[in-house]
């Protein structure tokens, strides 16, 4: 992409955003909309600054749950995918349950998990729920990736008497890397969604993450703070997404078609 393209790619969305916020501010001011219905962007900005230090611990809690759930999803997902690739029997036996876990809406499992573990340790309950949501994309994408290793390369590894472990680490895992990374990008966003949903269900101030702060601010009709917390949540999601995309680019840029710019 040339210089003009890059400039457009940054300035164009910014201009649209500025226009939108300006219009919003103007409408709120013109129609005298009360702040508990729709606060002006300037007011949200001020709330973000004023409440930042009170929102920060909540941000860190939600971030911690999200990152831990994500890390465990990657570890568990890759381990399970490797297990599947080693034994068709294990895959046949377990894969349906991974699917069931995925298709059952997390909101409907949440009350159960909160009852079972939430009373003693609400953070553990949040972690479990976020993990359930983040887990499946990793298993599904890595399983596909492990299986997509070049069959002739597999024959070659056989010819040279490679062990199962050598085949996994030196052939199947590298072949699965692009699949795993794209699964991670989906899973990273889902871990955050899972954490937020879990906090909503846990409610009642037991968990004091950002999602709880949104509910709490809503109850108190402190809509500017509600928006501020929401803003922080989406900023977190964006940062996670960008980091994972950066990682993908870093790991694949030398060899995978998806990360290499096309020469024309």
């Amino acid at each position: 992409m040339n210089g003009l393209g890059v400039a457009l790619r940054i300035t164009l969305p910014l201009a649209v955003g500025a226009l939108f916020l300006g219009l919003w501010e103007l409408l709120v001011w013109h129609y005298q909309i009360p702040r508990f219905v729709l606060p002006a962007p300037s007011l949200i900005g001020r709330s973000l600054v004023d409440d930042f230090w009170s929102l920060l611990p909540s941000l860190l809690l939600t971030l911690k749950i999200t990152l831990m759930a994500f890390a465990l999803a990657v570890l568990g997902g890759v381990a399970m995918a490797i297990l599947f690739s080693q034994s068709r029997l294990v895959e046949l036996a377990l894969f349906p349950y991974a699917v069931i876990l995925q298709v059952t809406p997390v909101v409907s499992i949440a009350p159960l998990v909160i009852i079972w573990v939430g009373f003693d340790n609400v953070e553990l309950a949040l972690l479990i729920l976020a993990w359930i949501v983040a887990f499946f994309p990793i298993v599904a994408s890595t399983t596909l990736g492990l299986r997509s290793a070049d069959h002739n390369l597999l024959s070659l590894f056989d010819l040279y008497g490679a062990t199962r472990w050598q085949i996994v680490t030196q052939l199947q895992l590298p072949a699965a890397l692009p699949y795993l990374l794209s699964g991670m990008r989906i899973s990273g966003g889902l871990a955050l969604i899972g954490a937020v949903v879990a906090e909503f269900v846990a409610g009642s101030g037991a968990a004091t993450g950002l999602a709880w702060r949104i509910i709490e601010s809503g109850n108190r009709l402190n809509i500017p703070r509600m928006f501020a917390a929401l803003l922080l949540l989406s900023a977190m999601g964006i940062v996670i997404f960008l980091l994972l995309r950066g990682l993908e680019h870093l790991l694949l840029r030398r060899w995978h078609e998806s990360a290499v710019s096309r020469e024309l």
Partner: protein
Amino acid sequence: MTMAAEPLIRLAGVGKVYGNGTLALNGFELTVGRAEFLCLLGASGCGKTTVLRLIAGLGSVSQGRIDWPDGAAPGTAPAGRADIGFVFQEPTLMPWASAFDNVYLPLKLRGISRAAARERVEAMLERVGLAPFANVYPRELSGGMKMRVSIARALITEPSLLLMDEPFAALDEITRGRLNDDLLGLWRGKGWTVLFVTHSVYESVYLATRIAVMCPRPGRIVADLPIEAPYPRREAFRTSTRYNDYCRQVSAALHRAMGEPGP
């Protein structure tokens, strides 16, 4: 049948039936002599690849035997298997690894450290003319260069038998000719045996000391022709009358093989 002095492998009455019921080979007889450059010639789908895979131990025979008159059969021990090099129709490189690491692979799988293998791998890359490209990834190499990496990888273990499955079929005429010459150069220097599968009459006559012609469904050897022309063979050989005579002879055998699919 002309026979080289010392047999390396003997396939006796080999049959292969695939899981889906396809009879790929039946009563397949072939003896490969030590230091021979044997071309297995036949139309697509006549079981040439199956022969190579069976010899490499990448599948089991349904009938008959594959004998290795001296030395352990590949497959009986991991170390014995590495005595075979295999070059596929596609370069079959690991896209995430540099040319160096692709060539290093067979040694790595044997537990040889990178440092210990470095000199050998670099010398091999030099021999296939890719020394400056050691750190380049496959996607940045041309088709011919990828095939050179693939050949270097097959030769790095100094195998006594090199199996090649239509390795140059996807390359352009000029690259193919150049790789033919380079392959002959590599082969003549060492004492190894080559079993080269191709469907090109011209390529087989140019390369081989002997050509075995296969008929399809089920695959069998129907003609066995020695090519008695001295090496080194160069461009001049391609335009000689002797080359043309051989091509005509081999081509006729191939047509007979296709016309009479056997009893």
